[in-house]
């Protein structure tokens, strides 16, 4: 059972990274470099949490609840520094930095929702 869920989540990460790469290439070809970089930022976030998820699966073995606790903890902890960076940028009216931090936070939020959906749906 846990293998199926893990497989679905890994497929989700792979699909999202692939989509980001496709959109990034298209944007770059259209001379929209900054927006292409946004896609790279998103792809990096998916990649970070894909790695964390793999580590969770390895360390928690067949314990679905333990995987969930591990992943949910990480996806709460890691974006804390992004929230801080966002708030700091806001204080300094740095719209450029704010946008990048917002993309990281939005992507992490989307991953959290997708994880919860997949993990709880099949339990």
């Amino acid at each position, binding site marked *: 059972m846990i293998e199926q869920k893990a497989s679905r989540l890994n497929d989700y990460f792979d699909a999202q990274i692939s989509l980001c790469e496709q959109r990034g290439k298209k944007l770059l070809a259209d*001379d*929209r470099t*900054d*927006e292409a970089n*946004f896609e790279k930022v998103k792809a990096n976030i998916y990649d970070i949490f894909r790695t964390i998820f793999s580590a969770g699966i390895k360390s928690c073995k067949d314990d679905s609840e333990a995987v969930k606790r591990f992943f949910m903890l990480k996806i709460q902890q890691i974006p804390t520094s992004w929230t801080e960076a966002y708030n700091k940028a806001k204080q300094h009216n740095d*719209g*450029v930095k*704010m*946008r990048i931090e917002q993309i990281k936070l939005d992507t992490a939020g989307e991953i959290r929702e997708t994880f919860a959906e997949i993990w709880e749906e099949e339990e």
Partner: protein
Amino acid sequence: MTETEAIRLFKCLSDKSRLQILKSLAIEDMYVERLAERLGITAPTVSFHLKKLADAGAVTSYKSQYYMMYSLKKEIFETSISEILQEKSDEAEAQARRDAQYRQKVINAFFEYGKLKSIPAQHKKERIVLEVIVQAFEFDRIYSEREVNIIIADYHDDFCTIRRDMIGERLLARDTEGYWRVKE
């Protein structure tokens, strides 16, 4: 506009989304959501681009009722590229220093004890060498060809080539009266 400002502006303009934003603002002042709707990109992305454009001095903003309106800084776009090129470079002093070093290097390489060792094949180097030799000529004085040859012969035996090249480089000029040193 300083060189640094020009570089920042050009970098900022080399993005299609930002150009589209500027094109829209050239029509009329707009707020973020209106630009987002018009250009088919998200409002946060429009804000991102507007911030970059504002930092580059291309747009300005003002409050109008509930909205923050953005407008083109027209004076920036009325500056011509040739005006930017004519601005004194921040690098000018360093360039002048490098040019002087290069010049001295060429002089050291081609002159020995005040004599020209050989005529440089490279035009840029020959020009430097000829500029050194022409200093032996006074301004506002007419020289006969013989006098010119004697002065040049102090530097190098091939005075014919050097004399001809000095004319070609407009360091010396001549007419039926004789030769004279051209003022820069």
